[in-house]
C-alpha cells in the first residue's frame, strides 16, 4: 500500500523534509513542497502510522540550524484494524510501551535516542534498536511537566491509552503504576483545556 500526504498549503520557514516515523529517514526522506502531495510506497501495513517526522533547516552561515519534530496527521483509508495490529506488532512488552510513551511525550532529553537529534544514524522508531536495555526511561516526570506546559503530547498519549485498553491483554502491556498516574494527569489536562 502507499502513503499519501495531501498538499498542506503552508509555506515552510526554511527547507523542510518529511518522512513517516516508522521508516528509515535516509531512504524515505522527502522535501516538503506545499503544492504537491507526497507519496511513499509501497510500504508494509505495519509501517502505516499517523506520525510523520519533520526536519526543518533554516538560516545561513553560523546561524544555520536544523530542528526536528514529530507530528501527528489524520490518517484516512487505513485498514480497519491497522492501529491494533500495528501496535500489537511493535508493543510486545511493558518496556516497549514505556519507550513508546516516552517517545510520544517528546521529552527533549530523549530526542537523540529516537533519531530526532539530527545525527541521522537511526532508522526511525524501532523498539528493539533505538534504545538498549541500559537506557533508563522515565514517564512520571515528563507526564507531569507536560501538564504544566499544557502540551498536546498528552493527546497522543491518550489515544495510545485508549488503544491499549481495547486490547485483550492490556495487563501484559500496561506499565505498572502507569494507569493511576495517567488518570490524574489526564483529568487535570482536560480541566485546563476546558
Amino acid at each position: 500500500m502507499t502513503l499519501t500526504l495531501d498538499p498542506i498549503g503552508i509555506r515552510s520557514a526554511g527547507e523542510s523534509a518529511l518522512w513517516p516515523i516508522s521508516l528509515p529517514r535516509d531512504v524515505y526522506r522527502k522535501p516538503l513542497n506545499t503544492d504537491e502531495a507526497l507519496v511513499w510506497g509501497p510500504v508494509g501495513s505495519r509501517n502505516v502510522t499517523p506520525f510523520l517526522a519533520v526536519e526543518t533547516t533554516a538560516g545561513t552561515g553560523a546561524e544555520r540550524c536544523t530542528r526536528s519534530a514529530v507530528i501527528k496527521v489524520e490518517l484516512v483509508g487505513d485498514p480497519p484494524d491497522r492501529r491494533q495490529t500495528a501496535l500489537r506488532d511493535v508493543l510486545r512488552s511493558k518496556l516497549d510501551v514505556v519507550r513508546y510513551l516516552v517517545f510520544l511525550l517528546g521529552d527533549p532529553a530523549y530526542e537523540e535516542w529516537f533519531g530526532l537529534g539530527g545525527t541521522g544514524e537511526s532508522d526511525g522508531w524501532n523498539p528493539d534498536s533505538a534504545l538498549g536495555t541500559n537506557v533508563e526511561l522515565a514517564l512520571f516526570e515528563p507526564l507531569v511537566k507536560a501538564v504544566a506546559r499544557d502540551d498536546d503530547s498528552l493527546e497522543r498519549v491518550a489515544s495510545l491509552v485508549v488503544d491499549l485498553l481495547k486490547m485483550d491483554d492490556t495487563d501484559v502491556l500496561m506499565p505498572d503504576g502507569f494507569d493511576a498516574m495517567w488518570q490524574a494527569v489526564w483529568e487535570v489536562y482536560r480541566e485546563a483545556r476546558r
Partner: protein
Amino acid sequence: MSTIGRPDVERELSRLKDFQRATVEHVHHRLWLDAEPTRRFLVADEVGLGKTMVARGVIAKTIDHLWETIDRIDVVYICSNGQIARQNLSRLNIGGHDLNHADRLTLLPTVISDLRGRKVNFVSFTPGTSFHISESGGRATERVLLYWMLAKGWGRRVVNTPAWHKFFQGSSGLESFSRAVKSFDHKTIDDETARAFTDELAEVRGPDGLTLREDLEDCVAQFRWMRGRPNHELSRRRYRLIGRMRGQVARAAVHTLEPDLVILDEFQRFKDLLDPGSPGADLAHAIFDQPTARVLLLSATPYKMYTLPDEPEGDDHYADFVATVRFLAGPEKAAATARDLRVMREAMLSAGDGRDVAEQARDRVERALREVISRTERLAASPDRDGMLSSKPLADMRLTAGDVRAFRSSHAIAELVDRRDVFEYWRSAPYLFNLMESYRVKTRFRENLERDDAQVTSALREAEGLLDWESIRHYQTLDPGNAKMRSLVEDVLDRGTWQLAWLPPSLPYYTPGGAYADPALQQFTKRLVFSAWTVVPKAISVVLSYEAERRAIDAARVERLYDARRPSPLLRFQVSDNRPAGMPALGMLYPSVALARLGDPLTAARASKRLPADSDFVRDHVRGQIEQALTSLPDGAADTPVDQRWYWAAPFLLDNEESVPDQQRFVDGMPRLGSADSDDQQAGLLEHVHVARALDPAGLGRRPQDLADVLTTMALAGPGVSALRGLSRVCGGSRALTDLGIRDAAWRIAWGIRSLFNRPEIMTILRGAEETGESYWMAALDHCFDGNLQAVLDEYLHVLVESEGLHDTHGAKRASELADVVEEALRLRSATNVVDDIRVTDGHATLQPQRARVHLAARFGRDQTEDKAIQREGHIRTAFNSPFWPFVLASTSVGQEGLDFHVYSHAVVHWNLPGNPVDLEQREGRVHRYKGHAVRKNIARSHAEAALHATVDDPWYAMFLAACDRRPPGAIDLYPFWVFAPEGGAKIERYVPTMPLSKESQRYERLLRTVGAYRLVLGQPRQEDLLRYAGAAGADLDWMRIDLEPRRLQD
C-alpha cells in the same frame, strides 16, 4: 577540658565487645609497639559498631602507655559538629571527669594555663569553626578574648578607650560588648601567651602593608571620632584585621598543644584538612605533624565515590580512597594500592580472566591496608549477608489530580516570579509557597506580593494546592498534597499511631489493651526521614502533626478551633476553696513501695508461666494480693457515704503500714522535686502533700466498691510505681525500692509522665478513648495499663544505662541520672512552625504568618547557630530516642552522620535519595546500632523465656545473656547485639518513596550498584548490591574480598 587520673585499662577494656577490644589492641600495637609502627591509623568499622567505644579504649591504653614517660599527655578530639561532640564526649569520658567541648581553637588561650598544670588534658573542637578562620569578626566571646590579650600584652591603659571598644564591638551593641569585657575573667589568660601574641603582632605583616600592630592602630584611630556605625569600607578593614588576629591566636593555640593522640571522628566530613594546601589544612597539619602525635581516624565511609560504576571512567571510583591511603601510609604505598586495585577490577569485569594475578594483587592490597586500616562488618554476621536490612515500600505511591493541579499552579507562579523549575520541590513537599522559608523562589514571591504584582495576584486567585488556613482552623481534613507525604501519612497515621502516648514495648508483660492491642501498632517503629531539602522536615512535621491532632479531635468529638486557647492541664494540683482538687492524681503518681511490691506485672506473668501473660490473669492475680493487703487498713465506716479519698489514701497508708524506711523524708521532699512547672503548682503541690501526710485513716468513710480494682491498676501501671520498679531493676533490685534517692528519681519520672498526660494532644486522645465518663486521672491510668507502661520503662531504662555511659555509677546516683534523661524526653513540648497563609482579597494578595504546632513529628537539623537552637535539637534527639513522642523525625543531611537514632527506630525513609553511597550508608547507620530497636524486638521474640525465668533483676539483661549463650560457634559479639535476625523477625527497614516509572526510582537502582562497588574495596558488599554491580559475575566474587578485620584475640 579536665584532668584525669591514670586509667584502669583492664576495666576499660572489659567493657568492650570482643571485636572492639581486638581493634583497640591492634591499633595500639600499630601506633606504639610494633617494630615498624605507623603514626596514622584508620578504624573504618561499619557504621554503628561503636567506633567511639574503640576510641575510648585507645585513649585509655595510650594514656597508660605514656604515663611513666610523659609529663603531660594531650588528647585532642576533633569532630564535625557540636551535636556529635555533645553526644560523644560523655562516652569518651574516662575516669568520670567532666570533658568540655572547647568549640573553637581561637578560644583556647583561656584554658592554656590549665593545660600546663595537668597530667592529662582532653581538648576538643570542631574544625568548621576552628581551622577555617575567615576574615570575619567571629563570635563576641572571641573578640572579648582578643581585647584582653591586647590589654594583657600592652597594658589595659592602652586599649581602655572608646575607640578600641568600638573597634571590637563588631555587630554587638556597644554597651553589651563593654559589659562582656568587664565581666570577662582575664585571669584565665596566661601572661606568657598574651605577651607572645602581642610580640608577634609587632613582627608579622598586616593586610595593609605595615606590621599588624601598626595596621591595627591606624584602623582603630579611625574609630576615635566616629559616630554611629562604621561605613562599609572601614568595617571590612576592621573585620579583616580581627580575622587576622583570630588566625594568629589559633596558630598560637596550636603551638601550646603537645598532642600525643589526635582523634579525627567522622573525618570524611572535614577531609579537605588532610591535604596540605589550604590555610585551614596548614593549621590542622601543625597538629597532626607534631613529632609526638599519633593520629587515629574514625570513619565507616572513609572515601567519596561519585562516579557510578557503569560509567566508562569507572577506574577513578577509588581515587579518593587512594588519597585516604596516601594520608595514612604515604605516596608510594598509595600508588601501589591504586595499581593493584586496577588489576582486581579488570579481572572482575572480564569475568575471571587473569584471576591468579588478581588474587595476588588482592593479597598485596590486603597486606598494605591492614597496616593502617582495620574494619569490622556486620554483614559477615548476618545469615543471608543482607546485614539485617530489608527494603520496603512505604505505602502505595499515589499521584492525585490535586497533586497535579498543585504542580500546575506552583509552576505558573514560579515561572512568573523567578523563572524557576519547581518540579523537584513539588516532588518533595506539598504547599510549597506556604511552607518554604528562605528559598530564593519564595523570597521573590514575597517581593512580588509586596509590589502588588497583578499577574502573580491573578495567578494566585486561580491557584490550587495552597494551604487553606481557614480549614485548618476548623480542623478539617488536610490533604497530604504530595505522593510521598500521602504514603507517609498512610504509613504512620492510618495505622493509628496518633492514639498512643508511647511506642508499644518490645516485650509486653501482658496482653495490651485499647489501641495498643492492634498488632499493626505493636510492630511499629519510629520513622527517621532524611531529605536534602530544608522545606521537607518542616512540611513533614507540620502535616503529620496536624493530621494526628485532627484525628484525635475527630475521635474525641470535641468542638474546638485550631487556634483557640489550648486546654489547661488536667492533672493539676490546684487548691480551690481551700480544698486540694488533685488528690487522686497525687495518688496515681505516687511511687508507693507497697504497690510496687504487690503489683509487679512481671511477677504476675511469671505466675502464669507465659509472656505476655493474659491481662485478666495478671489483674486477678494482683487484685488478690491487693485485697489481702487492704485487710490491714481500717475498713472505713460502713454506714457513711462512699469516701473517694480512699483512691489516693490507700497507697500512702499501705506504705505507712509497711513502715517503709525514710517514708516521712520522702514525702516531705515530694513538693521540692515536683517543681518543674510554676510557683503556683509548687504551692498547690505542697498543700496536697500536706493533706496526704496529715490524713487520719480512722476518719475515712466507706470504701468505694472498685477500690481494689483501681489500686490493682495503680500497682500494675501507675507512673510512680512503674518508675520505681523500673529503676529498681537496674539500680540494685528489690532493696532499691525503699531507697530514698531511688524513690526521688521515680517521683521525678512520674512527674515527667504527668506532664506527658497534660499535653493537649494527649489529653484529646484520652478523651476520645474514655467514653465512660470516668475522671481524667483514671483515663490516664488506664492508658498506662493498656500500654504496658512497666514494660515500656523497663526496656527504656535498660538501654539508657549503657547509652548514657552509666556502667560505673550505681544505686541512687544512677537512678538520678536516668531520671534526668527520662525527664528531658518527657518534657519536650510541642513547638510551632510558621506557615504563610496566602490570601487574595480585593485584587490584593497577602501573606499572613500563622503558627502550626508540631509534636507527633519533629524536624531536626536546622542551622544551628544559636545555643538555644542547639539545646532544642538536643531535646528532640533525647525524645526521639525514647518511647515517647515524636514518632517521626524529619531531618536534613545534618542528622545523617555521627548521631544515634536507633533506640526506638529501625526504619529509615530516604525521602530524597542521597547522591552517593557514603550518605546512604551513613543514614542507615543511624538506626542500625548496638541493641537497637529491631534487635530488641527480635531478642524479646526469641528469648522471652529467659525473662520469665530470670534470676537477675533486669529481664533485658537476662534475655541478652540467653542470646549470648546460644551464640553460634565462631561468631563475634556482633551477635546478638548488632545482628540478631530470627526468621520473620524485625529488620532494619529502608523506605524509598519514589513514584513508579520515575527518574528517581531509576536513580535508586543505580545508587545500589554504586554501594556494591563502594564496599568492595573495604570488605564485603551485600550480596544483592554486588549482583547489581557486577552482574552475574557478582555471584562468584568472594575472591575479591579484602579482609581488614583485626585478628581476634587469642584466649
